[in-house]
């Protein structure tokens, strides 16, 4: 059997099998139990010619919704921002495009200098002393930051706010589970910010507390208050930033006393694609230097006194220190970091605040438009927000969302999947790319969708009728935290005692 793109001939395969003493390729799969093996080959249609295949793939791709077909108000960790043409143009330069691990400084000064400048700009943006050369994405940056805090504090429990991106928390849980690291979750207040009192209690004896700035629900947390609450406990503070454009407007977390910043820089010139590639980074105060995951580029002088750049602290990386390495991250997202660097350098000290302001204004304008048009809808949280907000009072939010999707509007992220208590809500994001007309269309469509009589409306009415009279409504502001059973005091429960309420412990 020959395949166009697999160059091994029958003869090659025979020789390889003979060399290792195996009779057939199937024998290589002997360790896989018979019961789970595919029998009789895959049921695939005959292969297409290249021209037919391209036509077929184009047809499939046309089924995707994207910004050219839909009005998109999706955020929740990935943001649609304008990517100026110069970003891609500079990325295409061959000396960057092929850049790989710059182990040899004598032939990699360009790449090393680009990474050094990336680190420098991240430090300026986040208000920190040091930054690493980037990581896979924000979620792994957050998990690695938490592990760094356990090494630095020599404590073994991490507290994470429930207002941190749910997917980020899932990644942390994956890391933590196999390391036997307990993770405690703390709920949010009716205003949508982390419950400070519960956080303070849970932080006692913990290595770190993790919060997001602005948080997943769009609310701008107060890092200074969090640092003040947590500092006496000796736990480190980790701020997660998923929307770095907000840093054009907000005080840098490092300047507010936060120890570690775990950020995702996709917003900086990297298109909002289906799942990546992304660009994470860890920025921190200098006391974290020796425990920093990933690699760092430093500035040095050569023997003739000229400035040069080298990988530094590599002695702590995995290729040298093996299982005793600081972390298992042994690389960086070089090209994506370069992308973010070009974006940061080009927008600069004036452009980024302008961009932030535009996002802020458009999002607030959109919120007003929607609330004006649809009296039933309401802003879930009164707290300040940047370019995302939770819109509630939609009844069955999934139905409203689908209705708008039918009209080619992606009305944000329905929140039921992440927060059962927010099933009447969507997370709406508005960036500089959403036009005034698009925003108007969104507001009108939401108003119409809430009003629209449908089959499901009957059920909703019936539900309301079943509720006993005089019961305090559970929606607005009645609960402190994550679920109906949540109490701040439950945050200190010992490990493994169950999984509900304001705090949940994983082991």
């Amino acid at each position, binding site marked *: 059997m020959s395949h166009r793109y697999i160059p091994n001939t029958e003869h090659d395969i025979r020789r390889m099998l003979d060399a290792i003493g195996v009779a057939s390729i199937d024998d290589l799969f002997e360790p896989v139990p018979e019961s789970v093996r595919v029998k009789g080959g895959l049921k695939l249609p005959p292969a297409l010619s290249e021209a037919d295949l391209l036509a077929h793939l184009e047809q499939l791709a046309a089924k995707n919704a994207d910004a050219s077909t839909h009005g998109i108000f999706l955020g929740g960790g990935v943001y649609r921002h304008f990517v100026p043409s110069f970003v891609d143009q500079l990325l295409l330069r061959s000396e960057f495009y092929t850049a790989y691990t710059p182990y040899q400084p004598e032939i990699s000064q360009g790449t090393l200098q680009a990474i050094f400048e990336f680190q420098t700009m991240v430090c300026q943006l986040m208000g920190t002393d040091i930054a690493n050369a980037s990581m896979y994405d924000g979620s792994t940056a957050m998990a690695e930051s938490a592990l760094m805090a356990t090494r630095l504090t*020599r404590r073994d429990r991490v507290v994470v706010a429930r207002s941190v991106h749910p997917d980020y928390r899932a990644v942390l849980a994956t890391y933590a589970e196999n390391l036997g690291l307990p993770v405690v979750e703390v709920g949010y207040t009716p205003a949508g910010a982390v419950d400070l009192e519960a956080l303070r209690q849970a932080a006692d004896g913990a290595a770190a507390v993790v919060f997001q700035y602005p948080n997943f629900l769009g609310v701008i947390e107060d890092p200074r208050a969090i640092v003040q609450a947590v500092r006496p406990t000796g736990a480190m503070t980790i701020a997660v930033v998923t929307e770095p454009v907000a840093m054009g407007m907000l005080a840098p977390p490092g300047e507010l006393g936060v120890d570690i910043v775990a950020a995702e820089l996709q917003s900086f010139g990297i298109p909002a694609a289906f799942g990546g590639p992304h660009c994470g980074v860890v920025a921190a105060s200098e006391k974290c230097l*020796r425990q920093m995951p990933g690699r760092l580029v430093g500035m040095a002088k050569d023997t003739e006194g000229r400035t040069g750049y080298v990988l530094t602290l590599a*002695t*702590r990386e995995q290729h*040298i*220190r093996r299982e*005793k390495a600081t972390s298992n991250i042994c690389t960086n997202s070089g090209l994506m970091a370069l992308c973010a660097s070009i974006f940061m350098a080009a927008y600069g000290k004036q452009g980024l605040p302008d961009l932030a302001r535009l996002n802020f204004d458009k999002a607030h304008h959109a919120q007003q438009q929607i609330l004006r048009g649809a009296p039933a809808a309401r802003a879930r949280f009164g707290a300040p927000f940047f370019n995302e907000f939770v819109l509630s009072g939609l009844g069955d939010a999934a139905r409203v969302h689908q209705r708008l999707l039918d009209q080619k509007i992606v009305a944000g992220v329905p929140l039921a999947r992440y927060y059962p208590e927010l099933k009447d809500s969507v997370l709406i994001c508005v960036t500089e790319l959403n036009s005034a007309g698009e925003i108007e269309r969104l507001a009108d469509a939401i108003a119409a969708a809430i009003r629209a009589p449908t089959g499901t409306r009957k059920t909703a009415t019936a539900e309301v009728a079943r509720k006993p009279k005089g019961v305090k409504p559970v929606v607005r502001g009645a609960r402190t935290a994550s679920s109906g059973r949540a109490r701040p005091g439950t945050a200190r429960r010992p490990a493994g005692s169950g999984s509900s309420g304001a705090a949940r412990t994983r082991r």
Partner: protein
Amino acid sequence: MYPQDFKYTHDHEWIQIADDKGRIGITDYAQNQLGDIVYLELPEVGKKVKKGDVLGTVESVKAVSEIFSPVSGEVVEVNKPLTEKPEAVNGDAHGSWMIVLKLTDPKEADGLLNATQYAELTK
């Protein structure tokens, strides 16, 4: 070359024992192998270790290596000033103590190498 009143390990630490306490450092051979030492990571006072446990790390320009405890005991003192000038270890390894351990069992040290044996080991 190697002080007669020290005991030595196969991992290149030295220990100078007086009563139930021992001062610990790394040998001249170790510093020479590591090259320029740039950073010392020492344990917290109160840490209890068994023989062979990691007490800290020594970082040079080319490697990071562990300090293994020659005996079992509890850390009662660490040389903080030395962490400010770790390069001193390169200049005088046997005069640069890092940790003082209160020994759990002073007889445990009997199994360590003496100066002659250690000199033989590193020949």
